[in-house]
């Protein structure tokens, strides 16, 4: 049976209650909108790029604990990274949350993001965890179209 304590780890609850980098960056070089229409999760992501490097990143939004904690943890993790490092982290994160209940998360590559590993036991919540990352991908590479998980 799926474990609620693993889904709602203290780190997740803490980032939901006090999200990091929760602010607007008025002069961001790139912004992107992400929504999860099914449950109404919504985030706006602000990124300041310095060449290839994510110099600053912040978000605003509302939604479930998983979507908001994921956005908070993501901004903390990718700040200072090069674009391709962030993309590679997204791939590791995606593999973790979609790996299924028996998979072993690569905790060394994921660092604090491993706090969301419980999501792999809750397929209905994968979209919530991935929303921020899809939005980041859009901010870094996209057309400026709003991202939707549907």
């Amino acid at each position: 049976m799926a474990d609620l304590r693993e889904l709602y780890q203290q780190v997740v609850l803490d980032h939901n209650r006090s999200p990091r980098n929760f602010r607007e960056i008025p002069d961001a070089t790139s912004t992107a909108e992400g929504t999860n229409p099914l449950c109404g999760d919504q985030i706006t992501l602000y990124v300041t790029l310095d060449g290839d490097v994510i110099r600053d990143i912040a978000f605003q939004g509302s939604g479930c604990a998983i979507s908001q904690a994921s956005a908070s943890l993501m901004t903390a993790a990718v700040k200072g990274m090069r674009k391709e490092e962030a993309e590679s982290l997204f791939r590791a994160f995606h593999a973790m949350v979609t790996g299924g209940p028996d998979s072993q998360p690569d905790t060394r590559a994921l660092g604090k993001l491993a706090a969301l590993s419980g999501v792999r036991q809750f397929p209905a919540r994968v979209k919530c965890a991935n929303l921020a990352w899809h939005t980041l991908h859009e901010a870094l590479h996209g057309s400026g179209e709003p991202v939707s998980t549907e």
Partner: protein
Amino acid sequence: MSTQLVSARPVRDVATVRRDFPVLSGTANGKPLVYLDNAATSQKPRQVIEALTRFYTEENANIHRGVHELSQRATLAYERARAKLQRFLNAADPHEIVFVRGATEAINLVAMTMARARFRRDDEVIVSTMEHHSNIVPWQIACEISGARLRVIPMSDAGELDLEAYVSLLNDRTRLVAVTHVSNSLGTINPVKEMARLAHDAGVPVLVDGAQAAPHGVIDVQDLGADFYAISGHKMFGPTGIGVLYGRADLLDALPPYQGGGEMIRSVTFEKTVYAPLPAKFEAGTPHIAGAIGLGAAVDYIRHLSWEWIHEHEHGLLEYATSALTAVQGLRIVGTAREKAAVISFVMDGIHAHDVGTILDQEGIAIRTGHHCTQPVMDRLGVPATARASFACYNTREEVDALVRGVEKVREVFG
């Protein structure tokens, strides 16, 4: 035969009713299933499941066109189902019962045909703030096609429509009022009889979205004064993919066909096609024959219960659950109209509805979370989403207790 059910003494106890619904004795996430998502869809009694099986096992054929025995039996069963729905809604004539896919298609049928034949530029259609998207979007499309405008009846914080504002919206440009009988997200029971009277005083016909009203109380379209009434079979113990549009015969007659095809014509030549009379005019193509028969069985099933008992039992659940949930710290009920069906939407301090739903699901409790296809209601009340428990006559007080234990667990998880 299901007809014998109706003549028997009405059933008035929940244990007997529960035994008729096989899924209710099952489990979810290893716990006994507590099914509180009846506003999304109801469960099916074995009488309905057996009617579907019987049709496909013994009577399956296309209808209204075969000379053979099986086709005649299928036709008879399909038309009998229509007569059952006529009695269920108290329509004046079986021809006023059009089988459709569900309430959504029923509303689209009226919206699209009216957009073509009745609505003109600057005409007005009135809907309310608490409509399901299926009673908003079809009218927006109809307005886009015809140049008509949508007007919206405002709603109070408690979730009641402002009838004074409604009266002031009615004018000589109003072509239709489309309003829900019962709100799916708030549970409000609207005074549709009075609203229909007010509309008729202004010479305006009324469409009532009854998807949430059946199977919770008597529906009498003539007494209500509903000119159109839409229901979905799957929300009233019937199959998915079947529903009914009731329409007053003179109004349906005056509308053009919705879809073209077989069944809906009297004669076809390349020069001129003559449409069939009601209700065939609106039933193009092979309909969901088994679904209609299954819905007929669902109506038989509802009729073998006592309406009085259904009302007492569901109202008892509503009052019991309302007081138990109100006592939970940090929980607020959204939708506190004086007249309510057994639907309870709620929010919890600092905890998103989606998280509430996941934690309850781990306890085997099925509820709905989100905006419930009523985004304007969420915007009006300033909540992004709610958790919603919706009851049917097979639910019990023990299930309410399980729900309350579940929300206490939510608080525990979130500390």
